[in-house]
């Protein structure tokens, strides 16, 4: 319900939205549509979002696949502690690390860039991605690997040629979930992207709140909807794997 109503707001003229008497039968208008593309560099925000998100997911995969492989396949001293450490970073409140990260990026000259967002999104999601992939790797029967080993394949070759293709659904699930979290991230984006240089869709929303115009709700609704549609489509495609991904593999389903 709220979604339909919200969607209707995206296509209404501004005057209809903030009135003391709400208007329930809207008149259709593309005001907001024109506004977000013409008065605001929405295309640039969109590009920022896409770059930061895809970059962060790639970083995550490059780091997480070997890590998950190591955690799921080898037994060695400290393995459980390492795994637990990776998991525990998921629990850190963004607000705790926000201040130091802010200074760190400022000193590195990364403040207000897409690169900073990419790095931070990757860090936020790394624990998630590692654990999801790990859970899929644990399901691979050992015989499969043993067979490859007798054929003389090295460990990394097994990883590359057997395990990665076998857990592709897991990798995709992890990527999609990382993507959603990255799109949704708000606090860091707010702090790091302090000018339109690095604004993403989620902070672009906060953009429409200031200034003499007050809250520009139809634009907010429309931007929210634009960000929602691709996510929704992708999630419907992977919905079989969703519950497992959301619980980092703790629940099979």
């Amino acid at each position, binding site marked *: 319900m709220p979604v339909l109503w919200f969607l209707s707001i995206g296509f209404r003229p501004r005057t209809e939205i903030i009135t003391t008497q*709400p208007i329930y039968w809207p008149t259709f208008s593309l005001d907001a549509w024109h506004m977000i593309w013409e008065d605001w560099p929405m295309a640039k925000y969109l590009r920022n979002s896409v770059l930061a998100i895809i970059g962060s997911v790639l970083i995550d995969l490059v780091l997480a696949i070997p890590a998950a492989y190591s955690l799921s396949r080898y037994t060695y001293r400290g393995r459980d502690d390492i795994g637990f450490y990776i998991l525990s970073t998921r*629990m850190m409140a963004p607000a705790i*690390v926000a201040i*130091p990260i802010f200074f760190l990026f400022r000193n590195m000259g990364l403040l207000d860039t897409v690169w900073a967002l990419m790095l931070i999104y990757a860090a936020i999601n790394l624990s998630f991605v590692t654990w999801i992939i790990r859970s899929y790797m644990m399901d691979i029967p050992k015989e499969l690997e043993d067979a490859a080993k007798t054929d003389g394949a*090295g460990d990394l070759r097994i990883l590359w040629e057997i395990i990665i293709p076998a857990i592709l659904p897991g990798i995709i699930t992890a990527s999609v979930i990382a993507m959603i979290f990255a799109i949704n991230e708000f606090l860091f984006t707010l702090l790091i992207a302090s000018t339109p240089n690095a604004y993403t869709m989620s902070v672009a929303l906060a953009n429409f709140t200031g200034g003499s115009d007050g809250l520009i709700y139809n634009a907010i609704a429309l931007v*929210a909807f634009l960000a*929602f549609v691709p996510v929704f489509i992708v999630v419907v495609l992977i919905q079989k794997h969703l519950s497992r991904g959301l619980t980092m593999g703790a629940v099979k389903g």
Partner: protein
Amino acid sequence: MGTSNLSGTGADQTAPARPTQKTFKRRSKRLKAWFPYLLVAPAVIYLLLITLYPGIYAIVQSFYAVKFGPWQPVGFANYARLFNDYQFWGALWNTFVIGSISLTLQCLIALAIAFYAYRDPWVKGWRIIFLIPMLFMPSAVAFIYKLFFLDARVFADISIRLGLIDGNIAFQSSIWMSRSILILADVWQWTPFLFIIFVAALQGQDEEVEEAARLDGASWYQIFWNISLPMMKPVIAVALILRGIDITTMFTNVFVITKGGPAFGTETISYFIYRTGFKFFDFGYASSASVIMLILTIIIAQFVVKRAFVSAKV
């Protein structure tokens, strides 16, 4: 950084694996012991950079007064101030109150719907519909609720038309009204998360046991209470922990909808840190609050997550 290093090893190792095998047998043996560490190292280093560094930084900074000029060492003054700051305690309390009510509601609603729907042939469709709130950007959801309750007062208007109330509701001046909006927004957006997980768990349960119980004349709540619920225990624990973490770090809704008001009645810990740090630029003080949070997080993590994730690993 770690990234390039790792992709490098990946590419090299695969290609020349065969010729080196005999010649470097001894070296490869030593490498073998290190190999698993080598594989996790990049990820761990990356996370250490982004968690340990800020952690230490926050601890150091919490012993200084950091305003615009140079850092002034103040010893434990920030902590002493924190201890006497009713706003800080208030923020802890608010986080707890809003979080626990919201979490309880979400869990009960999700359980009820999941138990009702999991054998429904339409469950796939339900799942997709339920997903919708979850997939909206949280900031957008927050704006929806702000508009609905505060700015356009749709809720109040509908209530008046239905004759439920006369006059306007004082959302902006009542602490509990504001808290209710935050709770409602959170429940609306995240009940689907629990629903999806619970449905998956219920579908995974043994159908025959359930069928047998039904034939024996067990009622639905007996089945639920004696069969489904015990089976779901680890799943519920994991789901609640994940959700609980997110709720205790609640920021976006507070930032958009209430700004912590009225009278700091909805200010969560995250918002408290944000406000002292980035609005009053009292970074040292904000850091001391962060450190307290960090310690709480570590304690809770040790206690709960280790157990939940180990038991659910099977």
